[in-house]
């Protein structure tokens, strides 16, 4: 075992979880503080340097988070290990988290003393020997980007700096600063990069002062509703009784949103630190991390972080000798979307299943009847960073009403899918077009769906809207957890609304009638419209029913579930009308409303379509253009998919 920063430098260091030392965190970086010893000091600074630059002056970063592993990072990691071994070079193979640029996954970063640190994108295991060979020979021309320039590597001027790249330049990496840099399974590295300083500072203040600091920063809950964090804490703090709870809501379920997973997988200690600070501020004695069981790596990394923090006395009794005791338990959720709602989340921990009517709000009566604070992963990560850096730096960003930064996951029809952190108030256009690269060539943005299945569609004409809780609400969407799905002109808005509705229908818990029955009827009507059986009355029913579900549902799931339907009805009424009036789908997506025909100029007469047609509607001789019999066609679209020359066309 190598000596780490977390260990005692010599026998004079006396910190242990049983006998905590107040200066433990500061001592790690600028220590030893309790005694003067050159040897100990040198030992610490040498270890710090090792963490930053690698033990052998050559460091290979391989990202291992769920997203990169899905793209093949495990294989790349093995290839790197094999290559380093077979070459006999001394190198630190360093696991990191994901840096949020999903479109370059899996990437690896090589950094050697005296060489620029180079990032290689979309690495395949077979590329690894070539990349390492080139890099060691001083050639970085095939790299994707460089972190810095030194001027002594070949091809350096051809490769852009990471800071100059569009998706990186426009970001403000505030909570995600460590993502892709730090080893998520090592508390030592987090502390070496300035972690747990915020906790140290918070424990030096009174809890009221911590709440005041958060109030000044203007932080609002990043889970979607945007309730001021400090106010929530203050209400819980003022409740009588000495048993209070804090719950971290890591039950991220929106399709297309993964910023919480990314944060908790790439930098779990930051999130945990924020949680300890919040617990101190409200006086909670016990915390729960509620993680989706469907995200096993996230649960594993958070559990590991909790274990490590407990081992070094950052959790447990009398934390850092300040008389504050707090412990955390990781709970796996069964994976229902509704559990992201706070009362349902509490019910799930208690062993029940469904949300309940608010008030009483959890801040006054929550888990087992005690005051409970539920904060989102991202909010807690913000708390840790604010306490470490001070509120002034945080409040510098953002709009008048909402301060700071927010992570957004841009998916759908964009060139550069990923999770990007930008100041609140950035326009949708900047995020989607500048940072994420806009839709692929030849396509146009039609709408942007913000806030997942409970959010709304913002049309392309409103792309200059700044992203803010209030402005989005006015536009008919919600910020939600920050998932942004870009929809291009190849998509049918009725179909999009149907897709999101089908999700909420499946995830409705079934407790209250408007959501359980109403959403199903909403879905049935949409299905009717996409099948070409809708009438104009149906559109009125959609609108009225949607409004009733929104205003009279029990929890936020039902309260926001009709949003996709209502917002598309508001901005894309013409598409709905085309479906019900002329029974046509303008985007040619709804298969029942599309007429297939074979272009005789293109058809080669290969007969593939005729063989694949389930209703035997296609006839023709081999080698001659085929014809579709409209009376037999069931609009399944099979011929369109299988035609090798693209002769089957929609109209």
């Amino acid at each position, binding site marked *: 075992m190598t000596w780490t920063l977390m260990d005692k430098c010599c026998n004079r260091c006396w910190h242990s979880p049983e006998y905590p030392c107040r200066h433990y965190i500061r001592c790690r970086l600028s220590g030893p503080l309790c005694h003067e010893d050159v040897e100990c000091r040198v030992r610490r600074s040498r270890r710090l340097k090792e963490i930053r630059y690698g033990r052998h002056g050559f460091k290979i970063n391989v990202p291992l988070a769920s997203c990169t592993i899905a793209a093949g990072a495990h294989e790349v990691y093995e290839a790197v290990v094999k290559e380093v071994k077979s070459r006999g070079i001394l190198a630190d193979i360093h696991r990191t988290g994901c840096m949020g640029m999903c479109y370059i996954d899996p990437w690896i970063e090589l950094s050697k003393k005296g060489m620029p640190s180079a990032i290689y994108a979309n690495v395949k295991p077979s590329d690894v020997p070539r990349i390492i060979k080139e890099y060691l020979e001083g050639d970085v021309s095939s790299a994707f980007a460089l972190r810095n320039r030194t001027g002594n590597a070949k091809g350096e001027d051809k490769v852009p700096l990471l800071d100059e790249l569009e998706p990186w330049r426009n970001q403000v990496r505030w909570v995600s600063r460590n993502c892709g840099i730090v080893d998520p399974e090592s508390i030592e590295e987090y502390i070496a990069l300035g972690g747990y300083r915020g906790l140290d500072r918070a424990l030096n203040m009174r809890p009221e002062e911590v709440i005041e600091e958060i109030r000044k920063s203007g932080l609002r809950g990043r889970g979607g509703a945007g309730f001021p964090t400090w106010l929530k804490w203050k209400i819980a703090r003022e409740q009588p009784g000495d048993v209070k709870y804090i719950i971290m809501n890591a039950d991220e379920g929106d399709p297309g949103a993964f910023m919480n997973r990314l944060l908790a997988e790439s930098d779990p200690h930051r999130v945990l630190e924020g949680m300890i600070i919040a617990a101190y501020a409200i006086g909670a004695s016990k915390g729960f991390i509620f993680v989706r069981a469907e995200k096993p790596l996230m649960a594993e990394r958070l559990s590991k972080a909790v274990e490590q923090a407990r081992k070094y006395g950052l959790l447990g009794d009398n934390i850092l000798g300040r008389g504050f005791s707090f412990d955390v338990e990781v709970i796996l959720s069964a994976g229902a979307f509704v559990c992201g709602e706070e009362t349902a989340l509490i019910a799930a921990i208690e062993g029940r299943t469904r949300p*309940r*009517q608010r*008030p*009483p709000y959890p801040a006054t009566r929550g888990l087992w009847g005690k005051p409970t604070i539920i904060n989102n992963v991202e909010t807690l990560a913000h708390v840790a960073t604010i306490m470490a850096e001070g509120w002034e730096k945080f409040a510098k960003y953002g709009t008048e009403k909402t301060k700071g930064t927010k992570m957004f996951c841009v998916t759908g029809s964009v060139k550069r899918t990923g999770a990007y952190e930008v100041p609140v108030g950035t326009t949708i256009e900047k995020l989607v077009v500048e940072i994420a690269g806009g839709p692929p060539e030849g396509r146009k943005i039609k709408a942007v769906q913000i806030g997942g299945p409970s959010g709304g569609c913002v049309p392309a004409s409103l792309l200059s809207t700044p992203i803010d809780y209030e402005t989005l609400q006015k536009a008919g969407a919600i910020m939600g957890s920050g998932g942004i799905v870009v929809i291009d002109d190849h998509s049918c808005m009725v179909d999009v609304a149907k897709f999101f509705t089908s999700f909420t229908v499946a995830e409705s818990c079934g*407790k*209250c*009638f*408007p959501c359980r*029955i*109403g959403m199903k*009827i909403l879905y049935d009507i949409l299905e009717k419209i996409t099948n070409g059986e809708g009438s104009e009355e149906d559109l009125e029913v959609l609108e*009225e*029913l949607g409004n*009733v579900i929104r*205003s*009279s*549902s*029990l929890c936020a799931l039902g309260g926001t579930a009709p949003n996709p339907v209502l917002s598309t009805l508001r901005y894309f009424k013409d598409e709905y009308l085309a479906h019900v009036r002329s029974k046509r789908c303008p985007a040619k997506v709804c298969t029942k409303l599309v007429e297939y025909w074979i272009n005789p100029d293109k058809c080669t007469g290969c007969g593939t379509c005729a063989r694949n047609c389930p209703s035997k509607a296609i006839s023709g001789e081999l080698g001659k253009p085929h014809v579709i019999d409209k009376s037999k066609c069931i609009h399944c679209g099979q011929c369109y998919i299988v035609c090798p020359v693209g002769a089957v066309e929609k109209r």
Partner: protein
Amino acid sequence: MVKVYVNDKEVEVGEGSYIIDAVIKAGYSVPTLCFFKGIYREASCRICIVELGNGRLVPACAYPVSEGLRVYTNTERVRRNRRVILELILASHKIKCQSCPRKGGFCQLLDLAREYGVEGIPVCAECPLHGNECLLVRGEPCLGPITIAGCGSPCTREGTICIGCRGPITRRDVLVEAARLYKEHKIPLEEVFSKMKLFWNNHPSLDKIYNILLETYNGGEKK
């Protein structure tokens, strides 16, 4: 004690009580279905929604009162929401009023449906209230099983058959149930059809009703 305004009428209720207590104390009423005082207060049926002064709709049975709370129990918005919710409940409710044990006259759902003008309940649900013998049993082609309720069944009370003056129900499950009844009592469908022509001759869904009735009437034999 907490001061609450129900429909602008001042009323004082004890701390920790709910809106419904204040509403009852003020002399108004709120319809409830799932609420059962002391046993069930989960607010799942949402029929008891009332409007607050700030425009929010909340369930009266589970929303605690606070000082100066303004509650409106019968605004247009509340009534519209209640009506839609009732329609939703009825949409997933098996309307088999003829064989429902509640037909003696204490069906809250039926009362509410009548109050809010929701269609979908047949005259047969009201008819037994007055202790009439079912005319179908006597073999008469009564249109009760497929006519919208709400009249209080004056015709059957006088011993004549229902002739459907309030219009037909177009819900499939009701029609299927009706066809089953007609078949059970061996009433020929042609007689029912001829009665239907009296008031419903120009009804747009008449063909649909014919088809469903015929289908079930004839299709049932196979089973």
